[in-house]
C-alpha cells in the first residue's frame, strides 16, 4: 500500500519548503483556495470519512460544520500537538520530518472554517519539533502561504506555535484552550462545545496533527478516494506507534483495519528475543488491555470497540511474558495521579487513592478486599468527572483486574510479582 502521510517521511530535508514542494507539496492549497468554497471543502472532508486521530475519533468534517456560519465572532483553528498519551509518538515524526504537510492542512482547514488565526499547541518537551515548525512557518510567510492575501485569494491567516508546559491534561481540547488563554488548564464543562464557545469564547475547531496532515491529500485526491481506503467506518490510513517488547518499534502507517497480528509480527518484527506475547495495549494507556487470543482483531474504531477495547491514538504497547501486569497498572496509576488537574473530586481524590492501593499491592502489602475496593472506586469515578480523563484513569485498573486477576491475587498472597522483566537496560 502506498503511504499517504509518511510517503516522504524519510527524505532528508523534507522539512524544508523547497524539498516539500519538489515532492508535490503545496498543490492542495491553491486548489482549495481557488477552486473550492469553504463549504465544499467541509463536504469533501465529510465525504472522506476522516475521523479525529487524537484518540476520540470524532468525524472531522462534521466537527468543522458545527462552526456557526453567521456568527460575527472571530474563529480559531487549534492544532493539538500535545501528544501526551503514553505510547504515542506519531505526531512527533510528522512534525519533525514533514512539517509542511501539517501546515498545508492547517491553512486549508482554517480557510474551510473561516479562521484567520491558528495556533499549533505543541507540548513543551518537543523543543526540536517546535523549532522545526517555527522554521517552516517562517518559510511559509516568506513564500506567501501565510499572512495576508494568501496566493492572491484574499484569505488572511496568521499561524503561531504555542508551547505547552508539561501537562497531559492539555491534550484535552477544553484544557488546551484554557492553556492557550493563559489560565490553569482545567477542562471546561461541555456543552457548550468549542465550535460555538471556544478560544476566548469564540468558535473554535481543535484537530490532531495527524488528522490535519491528511487534509491536503483529501483535497488533492477527493473525499471518495480517501473513503475507499481502510474500513467503511474508519477510513484512510492510521499511523500506529508501536513500542514495547517488539523487535522493530516505531511508527507504521497502515490502512485502517490491519490486524494487530500483522502490525506486531509482520511490521514490528515480532516479540523481541523470541519471547511470548502476553498483553497488548492497543491505543495508548487509556485503552483496555488485550490478550493474545485477540491478535486477529482489526485495528479500527469499530472493531476494537467490539473487542472490548478502543483504537484511541493507535499507540500499540506490546508486553511479553516477563511483564508484571500489576506493575504496569501501578505505573499507569502513578501517571494519572500526576496528571490529574485537580478540578473535580472523583478524579483528584480517586486517582491518588488508586495509586496508593496499587502501590501497596505491587510492594507486597495488598489485601483481599483491595480488588473489590479498586473496582468500586473506579465505578465511582467513571462517568462522574468533568472530562474523559477520569474514565481513562480507571480503564487500566479495571481491564487488568479483569484479564489478569490471577496476577493480582498472586501479589496479594505471595507479596511479590509473578514475573520479572530482567536486565533490560544494557
Amino acid at each position, binding site marked *: 500500500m502506498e503511504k499517504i502521510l509518511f510517503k516522504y517521511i524519510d527524505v532528508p530535508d523534507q522539512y524544508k519548503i523547497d524539498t516539500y514542494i519538489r515532492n508535490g507539496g503545496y498543490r492542495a492549497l491553491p486548489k482549495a483556495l481557488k477552486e473550492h468554497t469553504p463549504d465544499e471543502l467541509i463536504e469533501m472532508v465529510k465525504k472522506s470519512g476522516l475521523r479525529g486521530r487524537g484518540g476520540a475519533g470524532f468525524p472531522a468534517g462534521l466537527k468543522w460544520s458545527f462552526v456557526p456560519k453567521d456568527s460575527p465572532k472571530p474563529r480559531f483553528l487549534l492544532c493539538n500537538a500535545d501528544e*501526551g498519551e503514553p*505510547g504515542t*509518538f506519531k505526531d512527533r515524526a510528522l512534525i519533525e520530518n514533514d512539517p509542511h504537510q501539517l501546515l498545508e492542512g492547517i491553512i486549508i482547514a482554517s480557510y474551510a472554517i473561516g479562521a484567520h488565526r491558528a495556533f499549533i499547541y505543541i507540548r513543551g518537551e518537543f523543543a526540536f519539533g517546535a523549532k522545526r515548525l517555527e522554521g517552516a512557518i517562517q518559510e511559509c510567510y516568506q513564500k506567501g502561504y501565510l499572512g495576508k492575501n494568501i496566493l492572491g485569494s484574499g484569505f488572511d491567516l496568521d499561524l503561531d506555535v504555542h508551547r505547552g*508546559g508539561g*501537562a497531559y491534561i492539555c491534550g484535552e481540547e477544553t484544557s488546551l484552550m484554557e492553556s492557550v488563554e493563559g489560565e490553569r488548564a482545567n477542562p471546561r464543562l461541555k456543552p457548550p462545545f468549542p465550535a460555538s464557545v471556544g478560544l476566548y469564547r469564540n468558535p473554535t475547531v481543535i484537530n490532531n496533527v495527524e488528522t490535519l496532515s491528511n487534509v491536503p491529500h483529501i483535497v488533492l485526491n477527493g473525499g471518495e478516494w480517501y473513503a475507499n481506503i481502510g474500513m467503511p467506518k474508519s477510513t484512510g490510513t492510521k499511523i500506529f506507534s*508501536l513500542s*514495547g517488547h517488539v523487535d522493530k518499534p516505531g511508527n507504521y502507517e497502515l490502512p485502517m483495519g490491519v490486524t494487530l497480528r500483522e502490525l506486531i509480527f509482520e511490521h514490528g518484527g515480532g516479540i523481541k528475543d523470541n519471547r511470548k506475547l502476553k498483553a497488548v495495549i492497543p491505543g495508548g494507556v487509556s485503552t483496555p488491555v488485550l490478550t493474545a487470543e485477540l491478535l486477529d482483531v482489526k485495528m479500527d474504531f469499530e472493531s476494537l470497540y467490539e473487542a472490548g477495547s478502543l483504537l484511541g491514538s493507535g499507540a500499540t504497547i506490546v508486553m511479553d511474558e516477563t511483564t508484571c501486569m500489576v506493575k504496569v497498572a501501578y505505573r499507569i496509576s502513578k*501517571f494519572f495521579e500526576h496528571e490529574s488537574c485537580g478540578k473535580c473530586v472523583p478524579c483528584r481524590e480517586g486517582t491518588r487513592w488508586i495509586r496508593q492501593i496499587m502501590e501497596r499491592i505491587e510492594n507486597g502489602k495488598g489485601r483481599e478486599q483491595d480488588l473489590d475496593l479498586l473496582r468500586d472506586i473506579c465505578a465511582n469515578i467513571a462517568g462522574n468527572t468533568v472530562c474523559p480523563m477520569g474514565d481513562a484513569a480507571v480503564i487500566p485498573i479495571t481491564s487488568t483486574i479483569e484479564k489478569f486477576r490471577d496476577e493480582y491475587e498472586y501479589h496479594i498472597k505471595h507479596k511479590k510479582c509473578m514475573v520479572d522483566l530482567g536486565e533490560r537496560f544494557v
Partner: protein
Amino acid sequence: MLSDSTQKRIAELKRKFPEKRSAILPAMHVVLEEVGFYNRDILKQVAELLDLSEMEVAEVVSFYTYFPKQGVGKYHIQVCTNVSCMLLGAEQLVGYLEDKLKIKVGETTSDGLFTLSAVECLGSCGTAPVMQINQTYYENLTKDRVNQIIEELKKGKET
C-alpha cells in the same frame, strides 16, 4: 534579574495575543531558554512586563511541571519512566544514573552540574529508553551511550 534582551522579548509577547494572559507560557519558555530556571523575582518581573498581577502568573506557572525552579542543575536530566520505557529498562536506567552521579531522583549533584528527575511519557516510546536533558532528547539509550553523554556534558560539550 532578566537581561534587557530577555525583557524585550517578553514584553513583545504581550501584543501577540488577543488577551495578554496568553503570553504567560510563551514568556516562561523565553525564561527557560535564557535563564534555565525561575524564581519569585523572575515571576514578578514577568508579571510586570506582561501587565498582569504576580498572583495570576504564579498560579499558572505552578500548574505546569516543565519549568524548573532555581536550584536546578546546569543539566536537568529527565528520564522517562512511563510504560513503554519501563518495559525497556527505564527503572534500571534511573538506578544506573543514580549510581553514576551519586544522587537520588530529585536531587542535584554538589557541583551543581546535574539534576536527576523521573518524568512522564516524553513521546518517544519507539526509541525507548529515553531521557531529555534540558531541551534535547537522547534516545535508544544504552549504558555506553549514557556514559558518553555524561562525559561530554561534563566537558561542557552539548550534543
